[in-house]
């Protein structure tokens, strides 16, 4: 443990001496509506239904690690053989013979021909941007952020891009708000360094709001070693990139 006068930093520091890998896998990054979603008439349905991100030519987008990029709607049920064969196997094992109940085709509400532009929002997921109590981008973040930068560059119709930074709940509310702001700023700065116009991007901090993992059963943060909690809360240390795209009425 640290020397007594610095005890107050222990909450923020308790894991600083542990090997990186145990706490690394950190942030979730969400991306962006791509042109494909908004150019087709079925933009909204596509967003509601698709488990994977496609580009404007309806080709699957692949991440820097070679896998498919999942949308926020992704669940194992939406897995396709090309992207996630392992989930298909699992699903098959769990229900080897169970008949799939026939569900009526979802009623797609026939939207009245919109006279006003509507705004479509989408977020995609990626990981590993920030360590616990840090806002400096991890080296592994570059691959994913480069991909996002390319997508934004290829889609000039994306405007009002908002980067929201998030923190886990360990630490005071004010501190986490500032930390989350700095995380959002770091991602914005990186995208700007990759040629995105700073005017298109707004960065905001959301503190520990909207947690993805609750981890209520894990002791801490006042626990002597909050490593388990830190690891459990990993998905919350993230940045989401969202774009609102004006979709014009189609007839």
């Amino acid at each position, binding site marked *: 443990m640290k020397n007594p006068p*610095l*005890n*107050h*930093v*222990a*909450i*923020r*520091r308790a894991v*600083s001496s542990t090997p990186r*890998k145990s706490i690394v*896998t950190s942030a979730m990054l969400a991306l962006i509506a791509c042109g494909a979603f908004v150019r087709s008439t079925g933009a909204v349905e596509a967003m509601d239904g698709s488990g994977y991100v496609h580009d404007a030519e309806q080709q699957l987008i692949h991440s*820097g*690690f*070679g*896998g498919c990029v999942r949308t*926020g709607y*992704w*669940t*194992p049920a939406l897995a396709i053989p090309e992207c996630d064969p392992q*989930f298909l196997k699992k699903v098959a094992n769990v229900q080897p013979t169970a008949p799939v109940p026939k569900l009526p085709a979802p009623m797609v509400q026939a939207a009245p021909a919109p006279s006003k532009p509507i705004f479509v929002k989408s977020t995609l997921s990626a*990981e*590993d941007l920030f*360590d*616990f*109590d*840090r*806002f*400096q*981008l*991890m*080296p*592994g*973040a*570059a*691959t994913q952020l480069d991909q996002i930068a390319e997508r934004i560059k290829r889609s000039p119709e994306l405007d009002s891009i908002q980067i929201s930074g998030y923190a886990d709940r360990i*630490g*005071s*509310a*004010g*501190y986490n*708000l*500032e*930390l989350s702001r*700095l995380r959002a700023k770091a991602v914005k700065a990186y995208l700007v360094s990759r040629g995105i116009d700073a005017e298109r991007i707004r960065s905001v901090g959301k503190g520990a709001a909207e947690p*993805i*993992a609750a981890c209520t059963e894990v002791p801490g*943060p*006042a626990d002597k070693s909050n490593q388990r909690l830190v690891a459990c809360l990993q*998905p919350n240390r993230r940045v989401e990139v969202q774009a609102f795209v004006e979709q014009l009425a189609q007839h």
Partner: protein
Amino acid sequence: MKRLFSNLGTLTAALGAVTMLVPAFAAEPSLPPEQHFGAVGYVSGGVGELQAKAFEKQMGKFNLTIEVLERAGRRDEFTANSEVKIMDRLGHELLDTKAAGPFVLVDLPAGKYSVEADLAGRTVKRSGIQIGAGHHAVAKLEFPAATD
């Protein structure tokens, strides 16, 4: 949504490959640039592990360290964005700044001062902070635990 997958192997490989290309990514932050309020020079910040370390390492370059903390259970936690003020013994304000993090490092002439922090409508004050030649003073301002 529950995280159902984590491919650490691929991740590690990708990390290794990229590390060589972006050496500047995890650079150790130094103190932010010194600011001035009238004649008083100061820096504030300390959010994030690396910057907090920079402040702790270099606080000796200033003669007063102000730490703004908030009680949480049996511990103190760092705060950010409190309004920090320093008054001399006549009540004149020598500093009034929004602290970017838990630390404010200040250079003051020898004398007796009081310091105050305001955060979310609450105020904590300490007086009788003695600054003398060759002496580094630390003033901790601790807010009681926030009520939900």
